[in-house]
């Protein structure tokens, strides 16, 4: 028997386009470490994410809608403390749109 999950109960995905001139493993480890730190400081659970590499130092951070604020804060702290050249170029709900955002950075920043 198949159950349908109502659309409002579905955890919507978000893709955060990030430019960072570092390796994927370094970036992934740093974001994870920062998320753990923030979770410890704030006293909340650790938010999960998946990192996708697009090449040319561009990455997509895939995460749940409820974790976007936590991941963006982790990226903010990473920019301040670890990677000064790290930039968040945009956020999107679809992979196709996120890839488009990565290509055109200037328009994205204005929309964010």
């Amino acid at each position: 028997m198949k159950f349908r999950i109502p659309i409002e109960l579905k955890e919507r995905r978000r893709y955060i386009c990030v430019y960072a001139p570092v390796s994927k493993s370094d970036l992934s480890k740093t974001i994870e470490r920062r998320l753990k730190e923030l979770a410890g400081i704030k006293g909340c659970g650790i938010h999960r994410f998946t990192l996708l590499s697009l090449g040319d130092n561009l990455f997509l951070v895939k995460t749940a809608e409820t974790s976007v604020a936590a991941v963006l804060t982790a990226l903010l702290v990473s920019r301040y403390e670890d990677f000064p050249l790290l930039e968040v170029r945009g956020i999107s709900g679809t992979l196709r749109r996120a890839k488009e955002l990565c290509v055109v950075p200037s328009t994205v920043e204005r929309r964010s």
Partner: protein
Amino acid sequence: MPQYIDILAPENEEQLELMVRRAISLGFGAVGIIGDFSGLPKGAFRVSIVRPRDIPQEARKIRSKTKLLFSSPKTLEESRRVTFSKLVDGVIASYDTSRPNFDYVCARQLKRNEGTLLVPVAWMIRKMLKDPHVIRNVRLEVRIALKAGLYPVIASMARNTREVVPPRLLISFGEFILDLKRDQAKSMVKDFPSYLISEERRIRTKGVALGEVQDSH
């Protein structure tokens, strides 16, 4: 129309130009500059921070030269005294003290002047990684300010180009660290600071600070 506003604290003249240009390119409509710089680039306005002991004498001297005047009290007593003066547009949240320095009385006093509580993101991040207590303090102060009907403001207070970030990251910081709803956090980066430097507020509070200056003569 409200626009994203940020407040920066550049270390020198070279940084000033670069930081303002970067902030504008990231989507900020106007940028407040803290520091004694001779000229400001287009899109920038002057912001000053005075020590509590310099109020009211020093504050009176620079009030007319600056668009926003803040103070950073280190104790609750200082905070009460600072917020009582109508010369000050706001106080900086307690990012570097072990306990909150801003209570409901301070908030009500600031409300008369339509003042604000400023959350300095860069300063707070530097401090909170060493001492997580600051989050609790600032969160509590923001909650008090909102309850009293104040308009808290989130600003990066960046000291170099590295610390100038898009408005979306400041909103997320407010949302996650200060436990705000996204709309609230957005208002603190966009609507509230826009109102703070608007002509409407200037007209509404016209004569408030002036009265205090004239009383002293």
